[in-house]
């Protein structure tokens, strides 16, 4: 590889640009000083303070409940949709594809406001349930796209072979489709989980008063006076992200 080419240096600069804020953030979380500019001494005190902060854990609990339930619901709905779109080429599926595709490209804020107006119009109390509905809706479109690409590489002659050998629908599903599509399902579900747990804009619109998720908590802290606790919180979230991304990478490797 040519190391002195322009593209090499631009790539290097882009990587520095991408990592600089993150590195400074991590360093600051161990900084005793309240201000990020001067380094005083190494400390874990922000992590200690974070540990005692009850509201963070409550928000984190809410985020987990929503992310897990939305992941389960959106994986089921998205997988069904992917099968329908892959196996049938009827006019109905064209409309179906449109319904799946448009939420993917529409800006978050438009989806957020449409959900808010919808829930107000049908008079549903805003809270965890409305967040669950909203999250399931946008997650399922991503799961559908992931599953469709997996189904494209799936060898459907295996299904025919099983049927020829006398397997019924249930056996085909349980013993052929499920094990072979498992890596795809896992990466789809992981994507849904990551999207849900990090989603802020739509959540903020449909959360109503009093219900907090982790991103809402972080936003409130950034917006209204942030103590260095948020640095510590960010580093913990970062560490979890690194772990999940590594798991996802190994999943996609198995898939190949």
């Amino acid at each position, binding site marked *: 590889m040519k190391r002195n080419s322009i593209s090499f240096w631009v790539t290097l600069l882009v990587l520095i640009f991408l990592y*600089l804020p993150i590195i400074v953030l991590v360093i600051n979380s161990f900084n005793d000083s309240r201000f*990020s*500019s001067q380094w005083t001494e190494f400390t874990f005190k922000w992590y200690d303070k974070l540990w005692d902060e009850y509201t963070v854990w409550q928000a984190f609990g809410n985020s987990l409940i929503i992310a897990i339930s939305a992941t389960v619901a959106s994986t089921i*709905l998205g997988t069904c949709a992917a099968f*329908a779109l892959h196996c049938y080429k009827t006019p109905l599926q064209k409309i179906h594809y449109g319904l799946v595709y448009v939420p993917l490209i529409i800006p978050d804020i438009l989806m957020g*406001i*449409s959900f808010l107006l919808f829930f107000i119009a049908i008079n549903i109390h805003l809270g965890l349930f409305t967040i669950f509905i909203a999250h399931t*809706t946008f997650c399922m479109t991503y799961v559908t796209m992931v599953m469709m690409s997996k189904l494209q590489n799936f060898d459907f002659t295996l299904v025919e072979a099983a049927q020829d050998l006398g397997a019924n629908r249930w056996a085909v599903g349980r013993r052929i489709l499920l094990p072979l599509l498992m890596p795809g399902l896992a990466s789809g579900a992981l994507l849904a989980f990551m999207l849900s747990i990090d989603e802020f804009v739509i959540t903020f619109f449909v959360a109503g008063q009093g219900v907090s998720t982790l991103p809402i908590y972080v*936003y409130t802290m950034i917006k209204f006076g942030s103590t260095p606790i948020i640095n510590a919180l960010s580093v913990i979230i970062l560490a979890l992200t690194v772990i999940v991304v590594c798991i996802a990478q190994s999943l996609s490797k198995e898939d190949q």
Partner: protein
Amino acid sequence: MEKKHEWFVTLPSFVWLLLFFLIPTCIIFIYALKSQDIYGGIEPGWSLEAISNLFDKDYTLLIFRTLMISAITTAVCILLALPVGYQMAIAPKRFRKLLILMLMLPFWTSFLIRIFAWKALLHPEGFFNNLLAFLHIISPNTTLLYHLGAVLLVTIYTYLPFAIFPIYAAASKFNFQLFEAAMDLGASRSQAFLKVFLPGISKGISTGAMMVFISTTGAYIIPDLVGGFDSEMIGTRIAQKVFVERNLPEASALSILLALVVFLPLLAITMFSSRPKKLELELRNKE
């Protein structure tokens, strides 16, 4: 049997999206045709107040600024993503995997945390202020935050991966023998890059540009957290109408405006770009 099976797998997602995507979207149009009551709800009956307010209050500046921010962000992201995507595609396999992982990590990092990290860097007590003041580029009292520049920097930072991944995906499928062929036929490296490589990955470029453009145009948290008066966008105004003024009809009218601002340019570009291409092809065939 087949028909029954089709319905069985189609219905769950179809009904869900009908209920929770199509109907809510239509409701925006209904709310735009209502008027606000004093409790932050809506009056019964229809009204054109929200729509006419859209024309009365001057939104030209807001639209222009939103489009300008999106255009600059898209251009910079594509310009940075092209060499990166190229480098990723030509890198040896092991190095390429590492590059992908390194570019993925910031992309998967919580969106809010990345904005917060920039806010800390650009803070009056932060890294950049001190560095630039130390180098005498700015005076120590300058605030880098809450300006258009900060918004542009953070939108570019946030949406750069949206440009890199589609361009890389296209570049990794590009046949680099064409590149060598062009150079054998006397093209310089930059000529080959511009005339062979770029047209070859045009689909990746347009996908990346579209994703960055749509995301930036609809941006709301970035101008909200790092922007100021000179960098208000349509998204921040919608949020203000919803959360501060509690004026849902005007928020709906503005949302329709945002949808137009996002999708009209894309529609125009796809219509204009497809025609000349066909023409060009026909002309070439005639030659």
